[in-house]
C-alpha cells in the first residue's frame, strides 16, 4: 500500500470554502469549514442536509474545487499542488456512476508536482444509486470492504430517503462526518449520529424512528 506509516490518510487543515455574490457589496452565499484528520483505513459515512456542502467537501478532498483557504493533505501530499491529471492517483471521486474529473485549472500543470503514488488512497462515492431490487447493493458494499482491507479510506455520501439507506449506513460505515450549518463534525458511530439533534431534524420523525430501530 502506498500510504506511509504515521502519516494520516487524509488531513483537512483549516479548510474553508466561501462563495459570494455581488461585485461591490459582496454577500456570502455559502460557507463550509473543516478541520479534521483521519489516520488509517476505514469506511466513513457522510451525511447532511441538501446544500450543506457534502459535494463541495468531496470536490475539495479530491482536488477538483480549490479551497478559499486551508489545505487538503492526502497521505501527506497537498492534493491541490499535484498535476491535475494525476490527482486521481491520490483520491478518486465518483458521483453516482461516473468519475468526477472536472478540474478548475488555475495554475498550469507544469508548475505542479507529480503524484507520489500510483493508485488512489482515498475513494469517495457520492450518492451511489442503490436499488434494493437488483441486488447490486451487496456487491457495492463488498467492494468498499475490499478497498478498506487493502488499506484505503472510503467515504460514502448518502442522502437517506428510504429506511434501507439507513441500513446501508449502519452496516457499512464505521464512523461518520456530519455536514451541516457550514461545518463538518466527526461522529464516532451510528448511535451517536442518530442521537445528534441536527441529524434528527434533518431525517424527520419517521426516518429518525427507523434509524433508532437500527441503532
Amino acid at each position, binding site marked *: 500500500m502506498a500510504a506511509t506509516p504515521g502519516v494520516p490518510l487524509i488531513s483537512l487543515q483549516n479548510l474553508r470554502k466561501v462563495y459570494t455574490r455581488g461585485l461591490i457589496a459582496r454577500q456570502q452565499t455559502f460557507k463550509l469549514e473543516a478541520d479534521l484528520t483521519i489516520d488509517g483505513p476505514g469506511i466513513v459515512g457522510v451525511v447532511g442536509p441538501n446544500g450543506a456542502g457534502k459535494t463541495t467537501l468531496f470536490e475539495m478532498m479530491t482536488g477538483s474545487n480549490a479551497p478559499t483557504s486551508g489545505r487538503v493533505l492526502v497521505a501527506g501530499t497537498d492534493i491541490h499542488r499535484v498535476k491535475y491529471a494525476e490527482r486521481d492517483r491520490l483520491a478518486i471521486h465518483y458521483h453516482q456512476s461516473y468519475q468526477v474529473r472536472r478540474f478548475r485549472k488555475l495554475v498550469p500543470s507544469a508548475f505542479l508536482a507529480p503524484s507520489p503514488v500510483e493508485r488512489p488512497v482515498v475513494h469517495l462515492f457520492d450518492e451511489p444509486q442503490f436499488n434494493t431490487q437488483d441486488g*447490486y447493493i451487496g*456487491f457495492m458494499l463488498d467492494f468498499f470492504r475490499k478497498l478498506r482491507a487493502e488499506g484505503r479510506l472510503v467515504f460514502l455520501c448518502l442522502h437517506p430517503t428510504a429506511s434501507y439507506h439507513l441500513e446501508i449506513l449502519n452496516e457499512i460505515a464505521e464512523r461518520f462526518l456530519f455536514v451541516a450549518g457550514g461545518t463538518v463534525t466527526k461522529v464516532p458511530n451510528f448511535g451517536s449520529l442518530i442521537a445528534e439533534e441536527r441529524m434528527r431534524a434533518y431525517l424527520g420523525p419517521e426516518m429518525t424512528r427507523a434509524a433508532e430501530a437500527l441503532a
Partner: protein
Amino acid sequence: MALVEAEGVHVRFGDRVVLEEINLSVNEGELHGIMGPNGAGKTTFFNTLTGRVKPNRGRIRLDGADVAGLEPHAIARKGVARSFQIMTLFNDFTAQENVMVALPAFRARGFDMLRAVAGDSGLADEANEVLASVGLGAKSAISAKLLSYGERRALEIAVALAQRPRVLCLDEPTSGLGTDGTLRLAELIRSLKGKLTIVAVEHDMRFLFSLADRISVIHWGQVVARGTPRELQENPWVKRSNLGSFE
C-alpha cells in the same frame, strides 16, 4: 487455464474515465458473464476486448499473447468473434447468405463473390450446418429482414459462430427480447456451452445467473465482485432482491 486475461485495463475518452481498472480472466471453455448497472463500462470493456477501443493502459492477453491495441480484424483473426447490442445483419440477404459471408472459406476468396459462390454447395452446406446449430435450419432461405427479432438475434450468433471462433463475445444478447425470446436464447447459449469459450455482457442478472459458470460484476469501471452465480447469490443483499430465490 485462462484463455482471455485483462490486466489493469484503463480507458478514458478525453476527461471521462470509462474503465478505471479492469482485471479479470476467462478460462478456456467457460461461459463468463459480465454484468453491471447502466454506465458501468460493460460495453466499453467489450469493445476493448475486441479491438474497437484501444486501452490507455493495461493488457489484454489471448492465450498468453498481448492483443490490446490490435485492430478489430486482427483480433478476429486470432479467434475472437462478437455480436453487437445493435444488430448488424445484411437485411436483404437470406439467413444462409448472412452466414456464408462470415465463413472463413468464403472470406478467403475475397469480397463481391456472393453471386459466384451462390451455387457453391460446400459453402451452403457449411452455412446450413451453422444455422441448424442455432435452431434456424428451416429458415435458411428467408431474408434476414423477414425473420422475427429473436431469430435475428440467433442469426447474429450464427454469423459469429461461422467464423469458427475460440472466443464468442455476446453483447447484451437479450436486449429487446421478450420473456419467450429470452428463454429460447438461453437454450441456444446453453447448447453452445463447453464447445467454445463465451463471454457475455448482460444487464439481465437472471439470465446470467442461470447460464454463466462465473460472473464478474463491473461498476465504476472496475470489477467490484466476482464468483460463481451461487457464490454471488449468497450475498445477503442479493437474497433480499428480486434475484434472491432464483435458481
